């Protein structure tokens, strides 16, 4: 676009200097953001000596030495931790999406006494940090005999994620045309069948929601530490924390464990970053 009135600007050095400056600042900060991670990943494929003597060289040729990974796999049940993390994360997301969709459907589809109160009741949870209730949750899990099981984590994360899911999905549920649902009812569909007719239409919202709740669950340290610290139910985040705390001197193993803990998150992030960033900022546009 050319604006005749701003034409004199073209002669000013700011025309090319400003973009250059913008790239220099953004580039330097980007380097600061990713260099520490690259440094750790790169050095995880080296032996102890190379880590200290040549930390800035890539692990190619004789520098390459996966000894740290051998130690991690020998010393910890890392695949078991990984499995626990997957079960906890997928189980929680599954419950959040299913129960959240059911509740959002119930609250938006029907009119009944107490609907306004129940909607408000479900939303209160958005504002309260559940961590502060940890003592009571711990007592509850002990009473239910669920301490040190991955179920304790799945239940807490699901309860924590439900208000957000109900809030988001209700917005989308309202947009589904009622003609569609009424047509199904005329054909004799039960209310449950109508629900399952609506769910596939929610796919984009469900996907965004899943990505949005996934990483905080995967990364959480607090509840695994308090509710399920035992070996059998240990998640990858907690397992990494404990391994890293114990192996302070074996740097190859430390860096290998860090890299193994980073990898799943980074892969998920790079696949879903677009949806995730969209989901994080949805609804804030209008402030």
């Amino acid at each position, binding site marked *: 676009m050319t604006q005749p009135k701003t034409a004199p600007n073209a002669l000013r050095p700011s025309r090319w200097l400003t973009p250059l400056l913008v790239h220099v600042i953004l580039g330097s900060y980007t380097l*600061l*953001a990713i260099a*520490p991670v690259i440094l750790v990943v790169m050095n995880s494929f080296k032996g102890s000596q190379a880590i200290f003597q040549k930390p800035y060289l890539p692990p190619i040729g004789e520098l390459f030495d996966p000894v740290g990974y051998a130690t991690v796999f020998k010393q910890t049940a890392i695949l078991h931790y990984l499995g626990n993390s997957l079960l906890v994360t997928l189980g929680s997301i599954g419950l959040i999406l299913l129960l959240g969709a059911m509740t959002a459907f119930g609250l938006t589809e029907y009119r009944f006494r107490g609907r306004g109160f129940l909607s408000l009741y479900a939303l209160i949870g958005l504002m309260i940090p559940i961590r502060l209730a940890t003592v*009571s949750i711990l007592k509850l899990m002990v009473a239910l005999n669920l301490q040190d099981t991955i179920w304790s984590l799945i239940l807490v994360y699901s309860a924590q994620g439900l208000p957000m899911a109900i809030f988001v999905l209700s917005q989308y549920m309202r947009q589904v045309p009622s003609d569609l649902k009424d047509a199904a009812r005329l054909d004799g569909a039960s209310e449950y069948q109508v629900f399952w007719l609506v769910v596939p239409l929610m796919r984009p919202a469900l996907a965004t929601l899943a990505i949005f709740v996934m990483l905080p669950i995967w990364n959480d340290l607090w509840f695994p530490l308090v509710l399920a610290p035992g070996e059998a139910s240990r998640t990858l985040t907690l397992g*990494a924390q404990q391994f890293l705390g114990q192996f302070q001197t074996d740097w190859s193993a430390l860096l290998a464990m860090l890299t193994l803990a980073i990898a799943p998150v980074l892969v998920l992030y790079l696949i879903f*970053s677009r949806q995730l*960033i969209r989901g994080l900022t949805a609804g804030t546009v209008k*402030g």
Partner: protein
Amino acid sequence: MKELPMLRPNKSRPRWHIAVFLAPALLLYSIVMVFPLLDTLRLSLFSSDGANFVGVSNYQRLFTDSQWWPYFWRALKNTVLFFLLHMLLQNPLGLLLAALLDSKNLRGRSIYRTLLFSPTMLSFVIVGFIWQLILSPTWGIAPAISDFLGIRYRPWLGLESTSLPTVALISIWQFVGIPMLFFMTALLAVPQDILEAARVDGASAWQLFWRVKFPLILPTVGIVSILTFIGNFNAFDLVYTAKGALAGPNFSTDLLGTFFYRTFYGFQLQLGDYAMGTTVAMVIFLIILFGSLLYLLVWQRKVVSYEL
């Protein structure tokens, strides 16, 4: 909403399906979230063994007993400092990055955005240890870089005088992506015709930002501030990972979150105390509630939201 009465199930018949849709989520939410929150309040009013109702004496103990108050006060002061550092550094930095990412015809915008946001995705455990290793005198990365920049290297994370600001800087490094994203979204919503009009009137990029864009995104400044406040007053993980539950050296990095954890979980020879733990939790809750109300009642009323 128009309704076709014929198609709606008869009012007089019990509509069990509504209960089926609502009950599972509401039960789970009530049992695992709402009940523990109320129970937290109840426990804070009982004695440590849970047998006797003691009123507010746990709170009295927290605020007056020399066994509790100095430590709580220290954690509170540290948390306030931690929060102020985030407000002074993280949020302006996020705004700067967002403003730069918003510049016209920027190449590689989405690559920058993805990479700048990536530390936010990592768990505290990873971030805490990465920086512990990089700043450690053993590896030599931080000493080498300090040499290069002409700064005298100190083990910043390990010194009582610098450990808290260092942990705050690490946390800022990790989370700057969140204000950045919020500000970016807000800047995207500023209509092009307003900007074009200002440009035609001869506004420089600097004027354009401070006179036109910034007033329009002021509501987002409020949202980012309150999110920072809630996040910081809950912070625990990074200190626990980088410095342990004792928030060393000599409790210099102790935040309300780590203080709460030690109170109910116990540490070293000290046994965990549920009554005092829930009392601390309730006080943190009240602080967060007070801050949120301040935001809702003062900031949101004063700040003009423009319909864009």
